[in-house]
């Protein structure tokens, strides 16, 4: 009897494991097939370097350079805000504060991850967008900057929790050693703790970036969706995710526009895949130590 249950459980676990692998392969091949059909009709260099996205004009223009730049700008802005704040928060939670406060803070940060992206977008639209317009005296508050700020909020929980884990797992002997040699607490943190935890922190940042790149709802609501190449972060931009979400509903299955959206999906998939891959490299480095 025990053996039977054992084999059943084993089979179930095996099939679950292989299923997720199969799904990834299927999704990838589906994306690839649709995109390949698109690139047969539309030059791939024109697709990546074209500046104009006019899928409904005659002839249709499918240039995603402005969308790539938009995604990149929003992500970069979000990182510039989220990374320093997250690392500081992680340091504070794991090194400075007492244990009881730490538990409260950590669970609060994790709670932040539970806020749905529509809610974050809505708050951004009502509160942040008018402020940005008045504060920086720009024509509209629907800018890449607004998107970056709100996305930073979404990336922070991931970044904080994972880098906190990394910092927490720095052996106490290192710290004691540094303190015994006469280093101040700050010196210990900066030279010893952060350095030892660096691979983990890098992985945390990468995973956070992965979340920001793929985020759709928030950016669609507050970045303005203007598909031209921006000159500064205070201009409206359109991201790849927003285009897919906004236009998927109208496209007829099998049309050029439909395939073009899948091609954007492929580009997006490649980018997030690359980010995850880099994060894995850092995490792997951490384990070997």
């Amino acid at each position, binding site marked *: *009897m*025990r053996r039977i*249950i054992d084999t059943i459980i084993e089979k179930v676990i095996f099939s679950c494991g292989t299923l997720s692998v199969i799904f990834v392969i299927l999704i990838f091949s589906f994306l690839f097939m649709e995109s390949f059909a698109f690139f047969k009709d539309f030059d791939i260099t024109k697709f990546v370097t074209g500046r*104009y996205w*006019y*899928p*409904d*004009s*005659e002839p249709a223009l499918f240039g995603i350079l402005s969308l790539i730049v938009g995604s990149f700008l929003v992500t970069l802005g979000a990182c510039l805000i989220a990374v320093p704040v997250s690392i500081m928060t992680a340091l504070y939670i794991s090194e400075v504060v007492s244990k009881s406060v730490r538990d409260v803070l950590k669970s609060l940060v994790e709670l932040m991850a539970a806020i749905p992206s529509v809610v974050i977008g809505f708050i951004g*639209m009502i509160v942040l*967008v*008018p402020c940005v*317009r008045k504060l920086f005296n720009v*024509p*509209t*508050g*629907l800018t890449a900057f607004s998107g970056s700020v709100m996305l930073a909020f979404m990336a922070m929980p991931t970044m904080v929790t994972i880098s906190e884990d990394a910092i927490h797992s720095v052996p106490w002997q290192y710290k004691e050693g540094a303190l015994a040699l006469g280093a101040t607490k700050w010196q210990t943190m900066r030279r010893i703790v952060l350095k030892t935890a660096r691979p983990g922190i890098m992985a945390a940042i990468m995973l956070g970036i992965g979340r920001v790149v793929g985020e759709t709802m928030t950016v*669609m*609501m507050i970045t*303005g*969706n*203007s*598909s*031209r190449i921006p000159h500064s972060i205070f201009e*409206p931009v*359109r991201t790849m995710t927003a285009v897919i979400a*906004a*236009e998927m*509903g*109208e*496209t*007829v*299955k099998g049309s050029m526009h439909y395939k073009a959206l899948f091609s954007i999906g492929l580009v997006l998939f490649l980018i997030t895949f690359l980010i995850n891959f880099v994060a894995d490299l850092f995490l792997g480095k951490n384990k070997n130590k």
Partner: protein
Amino acid sequence: MHRYIKILFFFLVLVLFFFCSCLKLQSEKDRYFPSIQIKGSDTIVNLIQELSEEFTRQHPSINIGVTGGGSGTGFVSLVNGTCDIAMSSREIGEKEVMLARSKNINPDGFKIGLDGIVVVVNKNNSVDKLTMEQLRDIFTAKIKNWKEVGGEDREIVILSRESNSGTHIFFKEYILGRNDNRKSRFAVRSLIMPSSQAICNEVFQNPNALGYVGISFLNSGIKAVSIAVNGNSEYIYPTLENVMNYTYPIWRPLYLYTNGKSCNVVKMFIDYVLSETGQKIVLKTSFVPIKNKSKKIKS
């Protein structure tokens, strides 16, 4: 070991139970509750919602689901068979008819009302009238500053809709395509807003913004602009009366599209919309009713 079996058994029962309830719901739904799925234009989604509420009050056994998404979305789901009625703020395109025919669906259109398109600006904007030529130049970014049309020295922020919006396509053809300029398109710098409500929100808080929405979206927080066909003609303010007597120049018909004349319930709903009580609701929600009752258009 015992525990595992129990848990497994429990899950099995749970799954079975779930299946049974699903099956039962499904069969009950088919037998007793005929349902209509309506999808499409954001412009008239409120109107159809209102109409369907009234309709289900009279026929409590009928379920009606109404979702927006844009006229294009409505046609696509009519073709894909995921809805019974497509709401639209534009006529069905030739390509869409061909596609529907190839999937054995015959789109059948009914004109249910007229809608005025208003150009809205912030309340603090001093500009209160524009000609249609000026509008075209603004939306194609020939005019970039409010001072060129008699306002303050500020950049114009153009708000547009996504390409699946019937309002977008109508505006593009009717305003941007004036004087045979059929190839003109919205400026690259225009912001693409996800819904008419989003346009209203941005116009409400931004004095530089300019957008277009259906007349039913007009509220006290934003200002509509009087429109003249050209520099010589009179500027007309968009009121319901002015749309109704055709003096306001920017208006378009609204449609419901069904698949042939297949289903009884769908026919009943269309008849209700075109009936006198239905048309009263059309007027109540700031649309212009069709005078010529049950006027049918060619698909």
